[in-house]
């Protein structure tokens, strides 16, 4: 980040090899080099960027532990710039998580374990992964950030919780398969994600970095469309196509303050009211007879 409060971000819209961690690590190194050359201070890779998405029974074989040589290799990617990447994490009690890792200055700064594991339609994540159990923000060199992995953002509460923690940016690594063909110019999924991401950015007055992968796995296509959205909901940068690309944007971090002065939605949030009402709903639900 330069002194004038600007942050250069890069989204690496890549096509990971399925179940080949070694090859993917090598490719991460290349993208990190390329992003560093552009002067970016933060580089975001897609969900499960180190392994590919439809792993099925490859999940245990693809996993790494937090205290391992593999993890130190990943941390070493972040000496020139901060790096967010996706990996399968095995806990000491042998549960496997679909995780997003934030590395800064050679260290692991934060881990988000995907909470909402889609298990419907073409998805089967709960068969292979354990769910995360928290949404937490964390301090980065560029302000407060929170991470949500793909399906996490389809649950309003996830981004809402992060926003009440005061995040300046939400980072969403994704492996979203394209589907829904109509006469529209874009796939149904691309339209939906653009709507959701822009809505979050505007409603929560936060930067929103959405990095989706590309390529094909077992016939499913990933549509890319990675985008950087400002706290007023405007798209700052987007790569519409489904090819590998480095999406670059420069954020004026003070835009968050300006937007929250113009639209003090966060100031006016009634957290206690929300908690009380949610507690009431929960009580009423649990007391209902079957």
């Amino acid at each position, binding site marked *: 980040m330069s002194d004038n409060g600007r942050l250069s971000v890069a989204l690496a819209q890549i096509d990971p090899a*399925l179940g080949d961690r070694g090859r993917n690590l090598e490719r991460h190194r290349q993208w990190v080099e390329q992003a560093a050359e552009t002067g970016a201070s933060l580089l975001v890779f897609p969900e499960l960027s180190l392994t590919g998405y439809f792993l*099925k*029974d490859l999940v245990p074989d693809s996993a790494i532990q937090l205290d391992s040589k593999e993890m130190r290799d990943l941390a070493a990617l972040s000496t020139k710039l901060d790096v967010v990447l996706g990996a399968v994490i095995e806990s000491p009690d042998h549960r496997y998580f679909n995780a997003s890792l934030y590395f800064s200055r050679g260290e692991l700064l934060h881990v988000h374990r995907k909470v909402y594991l889609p298990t419907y339609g073409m998805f089967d994540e709960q068969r292979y992964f354990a769910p995360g159990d928290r949404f937490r923000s964390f301090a980065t060199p560029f302000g407060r950030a929170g991470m949500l992995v793909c399906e996490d953002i389809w649950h309003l509460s996830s981004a809402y919780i992060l926003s009440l923690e005061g995040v300046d940016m939400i980072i969403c690594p994704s492996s979203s398969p394209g589907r829904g*063909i*109509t006469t529209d*110019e874009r*796939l149904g999924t691309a339209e939906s994600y653009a709507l959701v991401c822009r809505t979050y950015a505007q409603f929560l007055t936060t930067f929103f970095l959405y990095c989706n992968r590309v*390529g094909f*796995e077992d016939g499913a*296509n990933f549509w890319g469309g990675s985008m950087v959205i400002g706290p007023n909901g405007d798209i700052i940068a987007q790569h519409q196509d489904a090819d590998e690309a480095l999406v670059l944007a420069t954020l004026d971090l003070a835009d968050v303050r300006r937007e929250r002065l113009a639209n003090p939605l966060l100031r006016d949030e009634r957290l206690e009211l929300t908690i009380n009402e949610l507690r009431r709903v929960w009580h009423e639900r649990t007391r209902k007879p079957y």
Partner: protein
Amino acid sequence: MSAPASLTEPVFPPLAINPELVRGILVGFIKNEVRKVGFERVVLNLSGGVDSSLVAFLATEALGKDNVKALILPYKDSDPKSRSDALEVVAQLGIRHLEIDITPQIDAYLARVPEADQVRRGNKMARERMTIAYDQSVAWRALVIGTSNKTELLLGYGTIYGDMASAINPIGDLYKTQVWQLADAVGVPTAIVQKAPSADLWTGQSDETELGFQYRMIDQLLYYLVERRYTEEELKRQGFDEAFITEIMRRVRENQYKRRLPVIAKLSSRTIDRDFRYPRDWGR
């Protein structure tokens, strides 16, 4: 019989597609799924119908004309128009082709089973063409690219291990009426898009006569049934005839086996495809 109005009648709106978007995805699919398993080439059985013609066009765009080989495999009863339409596609695309009259090898077998009815004879031809495609795939180091559309796959209107056999299938998630739209957009000759769909396994065979319904009606019903999960009651309220609903639902259900690998008797703790589940693109 009148030709199906594949291009002249309006498309059922929920099945209307943006052909450029679909074309981009399918060309990308062919490139990706062929090359990442170490191949550059594909072979396909080109019947001269709209499905295989569309696949030839998509494969040529994806891999280049030198990497696509069309197999034209007529039987003596095949409609000569099928052959000439296939040759027109070959000429237009500039792709390689191999023509083999399968009559001697089919008749050699049929002489042994003179009682075989049309269905058995048709299946035999479809499977003979499959064995040639797979032999050519080894000879030419190419993948067999499939040409079954979603309507056929759902209705089971195809020969298992015959025309349904392939390594990759770019059009298996497109209904027939969507195949027409895409074929027209990518430049398949209009005469091919507009001719009456036929498996051409015997003279005068017509898909729509054999199925008993028009593709555009079948696709509408399948849209509500498969894509939207309408119940039988809801389908009736939507205005579909009860006998039509019953027949289509029966076909979808009874042909499920054709869309699956053979059933394996479970014995061990990890049975293939039941609890031994790996992606096909494992390590690719």
